[in-house]
């Protein structure tokens, strides 16, 4: 009898875990049934290695389009927004870059470029981003050495995915803004727009 009652808290906990809500996203029908449900993840699972005011670590990565993109290429020319997403074919990530795809003017207005970065392979990124329509910004693969760029910024999670992070770097290569966002939620666009406003003209 007592043994049964001792189990009650554990049964309740198990019930609540089983009923825990999925990450919040309004899934586009563009992905059909092909998205992998991650469940609720630890909001942040890494330790930043950079801070606002630091020089951003340089990198060179291959884009889905085939070109090599280096952060240094933009030095003295454009502000750069890095959008790291945790993983392709997952709910919240699939619900983020398509929004950036309709606000090119916002980046142009502030003389900024957007670079999308994921630790997924080029092949995976190719098939995934194809569902989003033609993206105007480069999508870079930080696959091998696995997550090296994410690790340099200190946003590689312990499971090998990256954080959902936005990093704004000015034309001098200095980090102006870091948002390591709750991985389960999409960063609101207006927060990024406000940071772009603050960049020197």
């Amino acid at each position: 009898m007592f043994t049964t009652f001792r189990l009650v808290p554990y049964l309740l906990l198990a019930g609540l875990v089983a009923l825990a809500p999925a990450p919040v996203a309004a899934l586009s029908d563009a992905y059909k049934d092909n998205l992998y449900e991650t469940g609720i993840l630890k909001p942040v699972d890494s330790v930043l290695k950079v801070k606002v005011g630091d020089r951003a670590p340089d990198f060179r990565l291959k884009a889905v389009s085939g070109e090599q993109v280096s952060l240094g290429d933009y030095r003295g020319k454009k502000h750069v927004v890095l959008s790291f997403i945790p993983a392709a074919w997952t709910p919240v990530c699939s619900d983020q870059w398509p929004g950036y795809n309709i606000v090119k003017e916002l980046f142009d207005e502030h003389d900024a470029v957007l670079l999308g970065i994921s630790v997924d392979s080029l092949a995976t990124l190719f098939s995934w981003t194809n569902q989003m329509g033609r993206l105007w910004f480069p999508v870079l693969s930080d696959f091998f050495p696995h997550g090296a760029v994410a690790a340099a910024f200190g946003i590689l999670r312990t499971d090998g995915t990256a954080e959902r992070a936005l990093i704004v770097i000015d034309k001098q290569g200095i980090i102006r803004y870091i948002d390591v966002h709750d991985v389960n939620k999409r960063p609101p666009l207006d927060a990024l727009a406000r940071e772009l406003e603050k960049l020197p003209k």
Partner: protein
Amino acid sequence: MRGVGIVKGETAMKRILVACLALVALLAVVPSLQAAAPPGPGQQMPDFELPLPKDGADRNYLGLTGRLFSFGGGSFRVAETKAQAVIFQVFSMYCPHCQKDAPNMNTLYNLIEGSQRARGKVKIIGVGAGNNPYEVGVFKKKYQVPFPLFPDGDFIIHKKLGDVRTPYFIVIRIMPDGSHRVVYSKLGSFGDPARFLDDVLTMTGI
């Protein structure tokens, strides 16, 4: 010995009580965690309110001009729209299909406004699932959306509609007595706007 037995009995009773309370708490939490299903034909829209639009043209379009603004801005239910039918779209500015569909939606609006049979009787309302006011504004400006769009930044309405994928369309028929029923509830683009408007007019008997 007898005293010990009473204490043991009281402890057991307390445990039973705690277990019962915990189960009641769990049962209370379960419905809020479980997603509702989208309303199907013949059913009613789930109960939720939208804020009165700040834009006078939107208020006029929805026939809500007589509504008084409260300190919070005021609100209305979809079925309170001055119309005989409402095409209710769940979209997101982050949804590629909604972006692709936006010109189609504008065509549908223009067809309605250009039709003697539909004008003033069929209205369109869009709700941006997970989109805050800024994001809805971006979508409205980008695609020059002529009908009212509302934010649902915290997915409250989206959850009540069954966590539907986007775009999702619900058509409701509003009766003269103010009652309503859903006549159409489907995921995905409706295709040709002219044919869809014909279908809406047929389904609603307008």
